[in-house]
């Protein structure tokens, strides 16, 4: 069984168009982020969060009134999973777990006959939230740098640059997609929490995996076809690895989609980011990482072939001796 015979797709020919599309997608994400802001999870924001299960469907307005009265205005209140389960969140900080205790007692007062059950409670102190945020940021940046260095060391410098830009592209696209779709349907309530950061790092890992496979093929082909132009060589390598790329990415795509629909509420944001990530990771290995290597090498070539004689003699005269 095989889906693909020998293909001869001219991937690199259309790279300028894809640069534009990538830029547009990232821009859309940035616009969304700047309008909606970062929707941080409780672990990054700090505060108290509770998941409460009621026996009967409960009016969100009533809960909101209760929270206002308890001294926690502007709390976030939303359905979680089913209609009887509510997620409550306030950024207000109190000493120890006083906020949670207060919510608990007002719940008992407001819904005495329902006796709601607390499924989960989380409190993150203000310092801890800031610390986790910083750690997450450091984790993403240091893994980008580590990947880039590794590739630059194993291949050539420009390959490292291409890889870093591609990875950065993937993270930005995933971040943008998460921001754009967040809150649009009831299944897409995404927030940037530790799980999401784990997803971003996994995207980095998977995308890197893909890029390395392609770079490796380019390197191998360079030894065999010494006289071939780089563009032709990259296209050849991309076509040779295409079958593998599609099958692997397809499998991961199916797996993350299953995780998205069946993995439960907790894993949903994580699975969504991964699904986007595997798509953009596959794409970026071709149209960002490989394309940058090509364009940079072309640029160097052109520089070399440029006539030594300067175009503007007067300039040359001024700068002489420096």
């Amino acid at each position, binding site marked *: *069984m*095989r889906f693909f015979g020998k293909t001869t797709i001219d991937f690199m020919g259309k790279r300028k168009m894809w640069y534009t599309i990538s830029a547009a997608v990232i821009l859309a994400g940035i616009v969304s982020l700047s309008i909606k802001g970062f929707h941080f999870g409780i672990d990054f924001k700090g505060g108290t969060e509770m998941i409460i299960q009621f026996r009967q469907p409960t009016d969100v307005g009533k809960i909101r009134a209760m929270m206002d009265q308890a001294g926690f205005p502007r709390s976030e209140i939303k359905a979680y999973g089913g209609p009887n389960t509510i997620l409550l969140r306030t950024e207000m900080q109190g*000493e*120890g*777990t006083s906020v*949670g*205790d207060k919510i*608990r007692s007002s719940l008992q007062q407001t819904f005495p006959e329902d006796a709601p059950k*607390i*499924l*989960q*409670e*989380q*409190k*993150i*102190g203000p*310092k*801890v939230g800031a610390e*986790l945020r910083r*750690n*997450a940021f*450091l*984790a993403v940046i240091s*893994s980008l740098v*580590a*990947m880039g260095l*590794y*590739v630059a060391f194993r291949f050539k410098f420009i390959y490292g640059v291409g890889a870093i830009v591609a990875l950065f592209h993937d993270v930005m696209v995933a971040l943008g997609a998460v921001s754009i779709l967040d809150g649009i349907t009831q299944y897409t309530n995404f927030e940037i929490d*530790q*799980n999401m*950061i*784990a997803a971003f*790092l*996994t995207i*980095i*890992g998977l995308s*890197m*995996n*893909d890029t*390395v*496979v392609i770079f*490796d*093929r380019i*390197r191998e082909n360079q030894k065999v076809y010494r006289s071939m132009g780089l563009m032709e060589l990259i296209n050849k390598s991309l076509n*040779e690895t295409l079958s*593998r790329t599609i*099958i*692997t990415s397809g*499998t*991961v795509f*199916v*797996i993350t989609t*299953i*995780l998205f629909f*069946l993995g*439960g509420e*907790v*894993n949903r944001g*994580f*699975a969504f980011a991964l699904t986007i990530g595997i798509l953009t990771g596959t794409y970026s290995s071709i149209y960002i990482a490989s394309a940058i290597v090509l364009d940079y090498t072309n640029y160097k070539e052109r520089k070399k072939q440029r006539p030594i004689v300067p175009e503007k003699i007067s300039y040359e005269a001024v700068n002489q001796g420096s």
Partner: protein
Amino acid sequence: MKKNRGRVIFIVISVLLSLYFLYPTFKDYRFSQQLRNLRGEDSAKFVEAHDKEIRDARQNRIKLGLDLQGGMRVVLEVNVFKLLEDLAKNKDDAFKSILDEVRAAAQNSDLDLIDLLRQKFAEKQVRLSRYYGSFRDSDDDVVKRLRDESSSAIDRAMEIVRNRVDQYGVSEPSIQKQGARRIIVELPGVSKDAEVRQLLQGTALLEFKLLIDPEIALKVYESVDKALGGKPMNDTTKSDTSGTDTSATVAAADTAKSVDTSLVPLPEEQMKAQEKEKKDHPFFALANPFQQENQAWNGQLYSSEEDRAKVMQILSRPDIRRLLPSDMAFVWSAKPAFTAEGRKFYSLYAVKKQAELTGGVIVNARATIDPQYNTPVVNMEMNSEGARDWARITGANIKKRVAIIMDNAVFSAPVVQTKITGGNSQITGMESVEEAKLLEIVLKAGALPAPVEIVQQATVGPSLGEDSIRQGVWSAGLALGLTMAFMIFYYGTGGLMADIALLLNVIFVLGVLAGFKGTLTLPGIAGVILTVAIAVDANVLIFERIREEAVTGKTLMAAIDAGYTRAFKGAIFDANLTAFITGVILYQFGTGPVQGFALTLMIGIVASVFSAVVVSRVIIEILIERGKHVSFG
């Protein structure tokens, strides 16, 4: 075959090892299923019959994170500000105003509190020694002292927390130090969070209580035993020996019990003797007056971990309470004694209800090595008020024992050798430096503050955890099934081999996780699923390569050889190493559940490379050598 023999042996050993590590998890699952079908008395009987097995399985199974089994996770931080406030002497308004300034400055400064305090004091031209330490101390001395206090506060807080958690009776609690100022407490299965939070905060209560004389205690215990239906003892000397005879030593009693719980049926006489003991002395069967050879009874009763609750229940029954002297109280030891088999035994002390002294009088305690005998000792220093009382107490109770009790648990019960005047006491006879160190921490905990505050807390209800497990396992199963079906469909026989490798891969990952006592979290399950993807990718890389090599006209065997070698040397190695690096970074920066993900990812990467590059290859090569047809689609 010859060339593969070593590899086959290695694979078989790895698989067997993984299964060996996974077996307790499987057994634990079986037990919990059996228990679910039993009701009330039956389940109690079942637990008793399989006691040791159940506990062993529980201890060695794959640990589930709190997000999966429900429970509480609390991060405590030593409150340095409160500590500075508590440590100061002669606090006046000037001090309070400086402290307020420090508090305000701390909001937007990166300097630590002690540096800020010093800075503010310098601004006001007040010497730190006015409030801390003694008059002649320079600011440097005081700062150094305060720093020591702040770092030792965490040890005290940790010991206090551990002691309380132990007494609360949570199974498999985890208490770890994070960094210099934080303690992470994980309590699986606990959902009464208000109660636990109370438990974790608040200052420790340290008390010195006099032990009740062994002879008196024994009389009381005997009357309890009798009241429970035990046979009367003929005379005290005999009862004393009977206490030792029936159980000889803790170790002996323990052997009998452990044989009882193992699968081997107990020799009949032994069983009868044990049954008889239970019937004749229902109380001493639970709480054993174990006596060391050639020594008088020390007045302590020994109970196994599980029997503690039963003993306390008996002692608090109204009809039993009437038999007890009104000034008598019972306190368990804080730390268990271990038998040769690793079973825990706690000892029960009978003490005077009224404390002789409380820990507030202790000024300092220090564990050192006595240079003369080269043994660990603890020097304890009391203030003048305490020293006066201590002289009276020790003077009146020479050769008696005074228990050191923190939060209602006995840490030590030294014998008073002489009347101690002047407030400086030395506690000797500890077995190890650790024991002395622990005593130092405990003695200080009563006097010095170790204020902690909850900076992070999460409680997961058990039902949410169950849902998560079901969804996680279900989606993992489906992902695995679909992937395997596709591999066979696309790569034929080769795909089937890859599938075998894939299944082994999952077994390896879980086996390693169980073997290294790692924790499986919800993101961890996602990590296992991703591992499947990584393993598939390695196989796809190899098979695609084999197809390419076959096109160039190589024989099947040569194509396979080239495919495996080239795929590994080129893509697989680099790709997986980079993925592994992200795993390491994730593990470094993440906490809790995310670390679980990173851990399974790292294990998974190693396992998947092994299963794809070695396992599937060996299977394929063996098949070809045996003349079987292997296709790659």
